[in-house]
């Protein structure tokens, strides 16, 4: 009863005070041309503040190890929000910026003059080492691997390839086999050709020369200069001889003799044999001689081209395509020069009214308009 009445009394006094307040405000504020409606909101904090009771439990951040403490690989050194500390030597950082050890060692909290604003946590590999390691001195590194001493296990591990390599292995082996077969066929064909070109070589020498020429061929095919390729062949042979001595398969004296013999042979082979454009062997020809022959071919083609018809066209074709001395660029040049389906402009230009004239339209860039071009039969020598 008393409680109820007390509540009523309180309400009444509240409304009174509100009235008086309202009256006071209407006296002091200037007149506005709109009516303000006071929306009364709850003043009693019934449900508490928006931010009240919403704090999470502590995230247990901070250092997990002390300076100089021995740690294992992967051990967490520091938990943090953001990078209060940066990972130093032999330490890594996780996606939530947790710093952890990458190597077993001793923890160091340190500063680095290269990053004066940053603090680092690192792992020194030995107790006496200080971090950071001096800038110009070599890194201290731990191997972290050990030998597999069990032979069976070691053999298994050695053959244990990554899936990608394991799957690729049979194809590679097959390709190698094919290459070897191809190599052998080229070697036999080279041997036969050498026997014809340099008849005073014995069987072993012929084989050696064939190997040398095949070696040179692979190099010049890949764009190495001929003289350089020859040197590489000789150098590799000498290296192999040296290794034979090292392995104890040949004595030093034998090796010196073999070396001299090979030098002689190389000199002979290089001065007797050249390659044609199909990498077949031909008798030796210098670059000047080759260029001269190409020039001769060019002049011959020119005379043929002067009175061109279907017959001469075939002759030109055979001259260009069956020549074994011109290289790809020279061949391309000759084709564009002498095997044209349409001759260059002044030849065969006629008026469009001419009968049997071939008519085409094209854009003239100088005059900026379409022009009609009529060419007579003369312009198309092979039609």
């Amino acid at each position, binding site marked *: 009863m008393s409680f109820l009445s007390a509540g009523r009394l309180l309400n009444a006094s509240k409304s009174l005070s509100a009235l008086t307040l309202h009256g006071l405000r209407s006296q002091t504020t200037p007149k506005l041309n709109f009516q303000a409606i006071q929306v009364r909101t709850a003043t009693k904090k019934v449900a508490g503040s928006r931010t009240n009771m919403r704090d999470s439990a502590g995230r247990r951040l901070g250092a997990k190890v002390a300076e100089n403490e*021995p740690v*294992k*690989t992967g051990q967490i050194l520091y938990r943090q929000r953001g990078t209060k500390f940066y990972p130093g030597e032999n330490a890594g950082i996780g996606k939530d910026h947790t710093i952890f050890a990458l*190597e*077993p*060692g001793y923890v160091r909290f340190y500063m680095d003059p290269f990053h004066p604003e940053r603090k680092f946590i690192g792992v020194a*590999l*030995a*107790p006496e080492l200080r971090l950071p390691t001096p*800038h*110009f*001195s*070599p*890194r*201290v*590194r*731990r*191997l*972290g*691997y*050990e*030998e*597999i001493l069990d032979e069976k296990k*070691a*053999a298994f*591990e*050695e053959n244990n*390839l990554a899936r990608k*390599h394991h799957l690729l*292995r049979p194809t590679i082996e097959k390709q190698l086999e094919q290459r070897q077969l191809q190599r052998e066929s080229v070697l036999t064909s080279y041997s036969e050709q050498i026997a014809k070109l340099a008849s005073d070589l014995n069987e072993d020498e012929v084989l050696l020369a064939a190997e040398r020429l095949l*070696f040179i061929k*692979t*190099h010049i*095919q*890949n*764009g*190495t200069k001929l*003289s*350089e390729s020859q*040197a*590489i062949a*000789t*150098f*590799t042979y000498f*290296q192999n001889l*040296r*290794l034979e001595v*090292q*392995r*104890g398969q040949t004595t030093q004296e034998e090796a010196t003799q073999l070396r001299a013999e090979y030098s002689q042979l190389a000199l002979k082979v290089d001065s007797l044999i050249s390659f044609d454009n199909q990498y077949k062997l031909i008798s030796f020809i210098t670059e000047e001689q080759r260029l001269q022959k190409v020039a001769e071919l060019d002049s011959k083609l020119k005379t043929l081209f002067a009175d061109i018809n279907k017959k001469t066209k075939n002759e030109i074709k055979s001259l260009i395509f069956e020549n074994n001395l011109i290289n790809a660029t020279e061949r391309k040049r000759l084709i564009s020069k002498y095997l044209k389906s349409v001759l260059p402009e002044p030849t065969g230009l006629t008026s469009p009214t001419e009968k049997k004239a071939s008519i085409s339209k094209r854009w003239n*860039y100088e005059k900026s308009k379409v022009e009609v071009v009529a060419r007579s039969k003369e312009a198309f020598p092979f039609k």
Partner: protein
Amino acid sequence: MLRSNIISQCRRLLSTGTTKTWASKTTAPSLKASTHYRDALLDGIPSTGPPSLRSRKYKQRYSSPEGINEAFDVAYDFLKSKSEAAYAKAAEAKDPQEKAQLETQAELHNPEVNFNFAYNEKLENDTQYIDYELPVYRELKKKHWENYGQMLTMQRLETLAAIPDTLPTLEPKAEISLKFQNHTGVNRWVEAGKKLSSNATTFPPSVKIQEFDALDLTKGKYTILIVNPDVPDIENNTYKTQIAWGLSNLSITYNDNFINPAKLLKDEGKYNEIISYLPPVPEKNLPAQRFVTWVFRQGEQSLDIQLQKRDFDIRQFVEDFKLEAIGAHIWRSEWDLNVREVRELYGLPQGTVFAKVKGTRRLR
């Protein structure tokens, strides 16, 4: 303007070649552009189109920017007068460095030189077009190298920690390029830091040393050291450095500077092999090994040392013989199936198979 254009066109058609000549004091062929392009370069694009364009269609379509011919003529004469002044100064200069600098200045804006340099092979240079004996081409090449090659090599050396694992630091002065000219027939320059197969590296690499500074190369000699700082040292649970190859007393010129089989055979007896080549034979399951090629100027001294042991302290060696590092290159090698054959070829014992240490075995 139209009239002058027509007149110049007529002159162009009538004349057999350009009348423009630079103030060059030498008759080096590389100071002239090839005759195929020269007239178009110095007198303007002919009516048939630019010679550098291959296709006739594009030649016909091409038109030069308006007024370029007149502006070029003025610019050419202006720069030529500057060049003459620089050559006159160079003739009086006594210091070879200063002289080279003035000669560079005199030729640096020669359009023919710039044309030759821009559109010809720069690394495997043909002296007909790019002759590094001339200081101007060295300067152009240096700029070209600094723009990309130098930065790339330095970045690879630093990120792969070749610096400071082998030598403390490097102030690059020469361009070092590397290629393996051996039984594989592959003809390709190795990009710094690339992983190479054990087959490719069976025989020693060829190293190109391109100097840019004005030096007396007839006296100065060069040393090449290839070191591997990743040899496992099982006993101490760490890595050690071994030398893979070493050459000294090498002499080069600005153009003939490729230390390859051809040069080594030609100069046999003139250079010193510090230690024979040991190819990369990386161990199974270990991380890739780095092979760092260091090139040094050894000055006029002769370095006739021969090493017996592979274990090597490169810092000590460089200090002992007062070598000046001018450039470096790096390649990496990982275990592959061919390593066994390389070991057999070089008579080496069978490789070790490693496994990662589990647990906490510390370094010390």
